[in-house]
């Protein structure tokens, strides 16, 4: 037998990563959390307004966006760092094989992406079935877009996990995990709050620019705004979203800009991680 091609080696690494993720209790917990969140939000949606009964897909999706933007990045960052920064002895054996370091990293990311996306699909799918049985198919398209947003978030934060964790073996692994948590907090909470806080101190034009930048440059915000834009159109937007729409001339321009941002947040961290991994000592 001859040595596998790069693509075959990448597929081998990805397959092993999927096998590990399938056997990890965290992947099952991740899927269960999504199902419970979605069912819980759908079932309790009318409680605050004094009503009862299940929300339809569209209302459930809007209610879920914030939770998805919090949970998915956390899971992708933590599981991503743990996958790309294995124990020293595992990393040394794996990276001494006759395949490029970049191939190993891409294989790990691809496998984890498939596993986490599958967990999201199972979780959202189970919850979607419950919503469908209780509230019908109204707004199912919005729910589908939310799931797509979750999958995009997974890709983005796995890419960031690669940048944070690639080659971090031994004691550096713990540091990489800590850094991943800082990145998660910054992306999901800090950047938005800081941008809004600073914007209140600025004049209108500068404030709008700052808010747009905070959306376009922060992948969590970009996907949250993109998901809301896809699910709700221009209704019920916040200050940052409205500023973005004004700057880009409408939903199409906003979607293109957000899409470019998300794509950049997937490609650039992975490229930087591969480059860094190629130059470090293990």
């Amino acid at each position: 037998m001859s040595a596998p091609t790069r693509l075959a080696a990448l597929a081998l690494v990805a397959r092993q990563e999927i096998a590990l993720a399938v056997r990890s209790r965290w992947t099952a917990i991740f899927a269960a959390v999504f199902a419970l969140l979605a069912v819980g939000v759908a079932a309790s949606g009318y409680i605050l307004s004094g009503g009862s009964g299940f929300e339809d897909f569209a209302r459930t999706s809007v209610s879920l966006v914030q939770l998805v933007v919090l949970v998915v990045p956390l899971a992708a960052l933590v599981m991503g760092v743990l996958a790309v920064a294995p124990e020293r002895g595992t990393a040394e054996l794996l990276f001494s094989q006759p395949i490029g370091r970049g191939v190993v990293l891409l294989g790990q990311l691809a496998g984890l992406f498939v596993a986490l996306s599958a967990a999201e699909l199972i979780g959202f799918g189970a919850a979607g079935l419950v919503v469908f049985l209780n509230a019908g198919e109204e707004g199912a398209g919005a729910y589908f877009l939310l799931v797509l947003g979750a999958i995009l978030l997974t890709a983005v934060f796995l890419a960031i996990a690669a940048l944070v964790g690639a080659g971090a073996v031994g004691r550096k692994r713990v540091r990489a995990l800590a850094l991943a948590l800082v990145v998660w907090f910054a992306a999901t909470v800090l950047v938005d709050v800081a941008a809004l806080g600073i914007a209140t101190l600025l004049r209108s034009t500068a404030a709008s620019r700052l808010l747009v930048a905070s959306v376009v440059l922060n992948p969590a915000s970009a996907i949250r705004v993109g998901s809301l834009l896809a699910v709700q159109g221009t209704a019920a937007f916040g200050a940052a979203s409205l500023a973005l729409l004004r700057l880009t001339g409408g939903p199409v321009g906003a979607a293109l800009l957000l899409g470019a941002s998300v794509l950049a947040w997937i490609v650039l961290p992975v490229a930087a991680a591969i480059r860094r991994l190629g130059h470090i000592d293990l």
Partner: protein
Amino acid sequence: MIRFDGFGKRYGRQRAVSRVDLAVRRGEVVALLGPNGSGKSTCLKAAAGLVRPTDGSVEVGEPLRSAALPEARRGVSFLPQKVAFPEALSGREVVEFYRRLRGAAPGRTEAALGMAALEGAADRPVGTYSGGMVQRLGLAVVALADAPILLLDEPTSSLDRAGLAAAHALADRGRSEGRAVLFSTHQLADVERLADRVAVLVDGALVGDLDRAELADRLARRGVLRLRVARAPATLAAALARIAPGAALHDDEIVVIGPAAVRAAALEAVRASGAELRGLSSEEGRLDLLYDELVGAAERAGPEVRA
């Protein structure tokens, strides 16, 4: 073939290895010895392409190519010092994964598991393995590829007798099949059992590189003859000093250090002197003492002299 040519490595300000020149040829088993932190693992990892030289070069294969190149690593099998595997996978899945990655024939998985005496545990998750079993699984992975270069970082640490036999068989087979084998160890029994050559590192510098003949010669020169005598004549000390200048005579004990021929001549001189011989013991030079001597001399010389 493995060639370190002026290899040096710094980690920040810390110098791990200084100007190491060492070649391991086909069919040769070379042991790397040295205290903890002397640079043994750094040398092995550089040959496995995991560590890039700060100075000089590390090349492997025929023709020689930089060890950092994935193509060069096709001919290299490396066992890390504390090898580890994902705990959720079974031993068989681990070996099968690496078999496919190396492009080895399907039958190699069973052969490698058998070589490492892991057939009975092959379908158990690695998380249930003992430390020694994990080490044996590492040996199975290394054995898979039939690579012309074997790099083993302390391959026998934490091994039981079956594991030790597997590690020794791997190195022996490597020699008989014309591979270049470089291993590090603190177990001098492994060195005596396996090595064709011994390279000694101290503080990152190569302070000794002895082949089997040189090693045997050095050990023979350090052989010790102890005699217990009575009624030794006064002339015996002078006679012994002529044969073995380092011979010592204390009360009723004579200690002669030197090659076998010197020890035999000293014994003959004692007999000829008319002294009564009451006891005798003789032993060849010990590797641990020679090692301590080499390391001690290098440490006393200091880093400037070694560099």
